[in-house]
């Protein structure tokens, strides 16, 4: 069948069963938006292209399907970059369609020309500049295939304006054969056998799982491995939800703001079963001291992750779910009883600082998170921004299911949380969706309140308002002698009134009692609500491991009542 380039894009989306697109129009995508007009495809008009990518990213993280974004050339395309880098770092599948100036103008510094394939080269899994309409169907099919297979990631397709209007044959073949792209899914049997032996021999084993365990749908297998093997589990920030947060075998997150127990366990373990983790510096602390006593089994779909930061004794390349399945078939548990007793001792001795609001009835951020956990019965999907509030959410909300904690882990992008929450809610209309944000982060994409109100997207926004770029202030307090250089957010608006001005509901709470009441009220209304929680301004996130220190050197902090 012959059709125009613009129609090919829409037809490809239909073939891929995409029913939702996020975007923002402009000159070079006029033909595409015209084609969209009668297509029946749902399109969410954001207020900044960055919001579109984060929303598509949130959508992708909860559904596992690629999120799709449209943007125009030049500034439209460059506004996507932070969002693309965010998705790339966290291996999120996205397909981004950008308009480009017409073919004959490319390279002439034409109006709104930007070399977006050049700009995004280091932050996409792959990208394409379409030069001939004949190639477009194959490129689109490849883009979806590459984004959503192997280690997932964003793929950008840059389409010059004239190509949208040119005609070509449309045959869409989802089964791609790409000579240089053959992800490995099945783990090597010999390596699996070595892992089985190591697990049987281990006396102090620890499972340490990350984002890939969530994404590959391996939570069930992970749980079986832990429970049958009597092996405790720690999860990276990206892994939260891959194992039930209320299981006695769960130790919490390790690393910079991890629990004492998780950090001690990593340090003392004789075997670490690392499941799709990147051994990021926020987790390992000083590398030379990391897990010195342990043999490490590392399971990952991306061979390049294995041995990148830490030396691995038993590498297994493959899809985690398949590898764990193979492991479970032959699992012989070792004797871990003494180890589990040791761990329980640590857990009792070093609980997380609770922040119950003891001193003068001040509202503590940890309390707010635990109230959200209580009122949603731990069943909400929570998207966060970046900063202290993100760490408090990771620590104090009990995530029990995969794909319920949505956060920018690798890039740490402030401004991610709110638009991501919108994408989550659109994907899961039945779920309660919260965005836990900071007074700094929220203002990086606050304009998306219009998107939420305009499309009646029922997201509850909890602003942990400390009047500071709190996480940076904490570092200034601890490592720069309290010199708060440009971290006080003077001039913050009244967020509740901003919300009302947009047509959303706005609430404010300054005491524990008000906080609980505001949350109940927010959950009782349909539609977007912003709750401004005025918390203790100089509360710190503890425990903390100072940067580049061994992770068993932990500051537990004294000011968390």
């Amino acid at each position: 069948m012959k059709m125009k380039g613009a129609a090919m894009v829409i037809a490809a989306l239909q073939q891929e069963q995409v029913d939702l697109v996020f975007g923002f129009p402009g000159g070079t995508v006029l033909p595409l938006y015209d084609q969209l007009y009668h297509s029946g495809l749902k399109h969410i008009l954001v207020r900044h292209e960055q919001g579109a990518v984060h929303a598509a990213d949130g959508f992708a993280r909860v559904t596992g399907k690629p999120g799709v974004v449209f943007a125009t050339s030049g500034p439209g395309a460059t506004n996507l970059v932070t969002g693309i880098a965010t998705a790339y770092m966290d291996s999120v599948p996205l397909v981004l369609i950008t308009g480009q100036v017409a073919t004959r103008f490319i390279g002439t510094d034409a109006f709104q020309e930007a070399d977006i394939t050049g700009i995004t080269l280091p932050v996409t899994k792959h990208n394409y500049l379409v030069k001939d309409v004949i190639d477009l169907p194959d490129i689109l099919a490849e883009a979806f295939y590459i984004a959503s297979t192997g280690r997932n990631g964003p793929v950008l397709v840059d389409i010059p304006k004239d190509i949208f209007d040119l005609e070509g044959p449309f045959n869409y073949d989802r089964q791609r054969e790409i000579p240089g792209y053959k992800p490995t899914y099945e783990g090597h049997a010999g390596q699996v056998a070595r892992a089985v032996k190591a697990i049987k021999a281990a006396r102090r084993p620890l499972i340490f799982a990350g984002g890939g365990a969530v994404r590959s749908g391996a939570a069930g297998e992970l749980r079986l491995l832990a429970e049958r093997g009597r092996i405790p589990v720690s999860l990276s920030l990206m892994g939260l939800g891959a194992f039930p947060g209320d299981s006695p075998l769960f130790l919490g997150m390790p690393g910079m703001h991890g629990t004492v127990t998780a950090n001690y366990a990593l340090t003392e373990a004789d075997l670490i079963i690392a499941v799709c983790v990147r051994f990021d510096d926020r987790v390992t602390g000083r590398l030379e001291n990391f897990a010195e006593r342990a043999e490490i089994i590392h399971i990952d779909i991306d061979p390049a992750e294995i041995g990148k930061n830490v030396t691995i004794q038993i590498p297994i390349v493959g899809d985690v779910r398949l590898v764990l399945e193979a492991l479970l078939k032959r699992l012989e548990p070792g004797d871990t009883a003494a180890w589990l007793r040791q761990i329980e001792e640590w857990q009792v001795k070093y609980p997380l600082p609770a922040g119950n609001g003891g001193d003068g009835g001040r509202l503590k951020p940890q309390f707010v998170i635990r109230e959200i956990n209580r009122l949603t019965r731990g069943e909400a999907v929570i998207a966060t921004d970046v900063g202290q509030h993100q760490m408090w959410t990771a620590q104090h909300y009990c995530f029990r299911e995969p794909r319920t904690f949505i956060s920018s882990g690798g890039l740490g992008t402030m401004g991610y949380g709110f638009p991501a929450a919108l994408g989550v809610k659109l994907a899961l209309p039945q779920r309660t969706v919260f965005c836990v944000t900071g007074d700094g982060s929220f203002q990086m994409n606050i304009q998306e309140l219009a998107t939420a109100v305009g499309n009646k997207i029922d997201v509850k926004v909890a602003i942990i308002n400390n009047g500071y770029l709190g996480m940076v202030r904490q570092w200034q307090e601890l490592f720069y002698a309290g010199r708060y250089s440009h971290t006080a957010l003077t001039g913050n608006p009244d967020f509740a009134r901003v919300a009302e001005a947009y047509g959303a509901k706005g609430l404010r709470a300054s005491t524990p009692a008000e906080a609980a009441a505001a949350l109940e009220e927010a959950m009782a209304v349909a539609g977007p609500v912003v709750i401004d929680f005025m918390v203790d301004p100089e509360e710190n996130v503890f425990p903390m491991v100072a940067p580049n220190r061994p992770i068993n050197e932990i500051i537990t902090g004294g000011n968390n009542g």
Partner: protein
Amino acid sequence: MKHLLAVLVEDKPGVLTRVAGLFSRRGFNIENITVGETVLPGVSRMTITVEGDETVLEQVMKQLNKLINVIKISNLSHEPVVMRELMLIKVRAESQTRNEIQQIVETFRGKVVDVSLDSMIIEVTGNDEKLEAIKQLLHHFGIREIVRTGKIALLRGSKISRDQ
């Protein structure tokens, strides 16, 4: 340590940028890179020399493999190979020195490919040591310009690097 890699890539726009960008982004030291066609339609071959220890090499190969347009990487460092590079040298040559230069060129099985009143262009092919040696010898006549193609290599015998 230097490593010699033969990399088969899809002949698509931007492939060289992707490969070169990867090296600079990840802080790998690329010493030499050449690209050219192969017997396979749509496939080019890059010959790359990288500097680094075994861990660096492992990362280089794994990261290269992740590029969608990279089809196959062979490490030729420990293989018997024929390696060549071509160098053109423009050297100062007056009537008194011409003969002497000519002799050096012959010893190295090079060729004089251009002569003017006060200079000559010499073409010489070989491996690193050979090119360095002739460069040294010609140095005192006054080298005015040098250009090199970069290294290329093939496995000796009937094996081809695709089989590796």
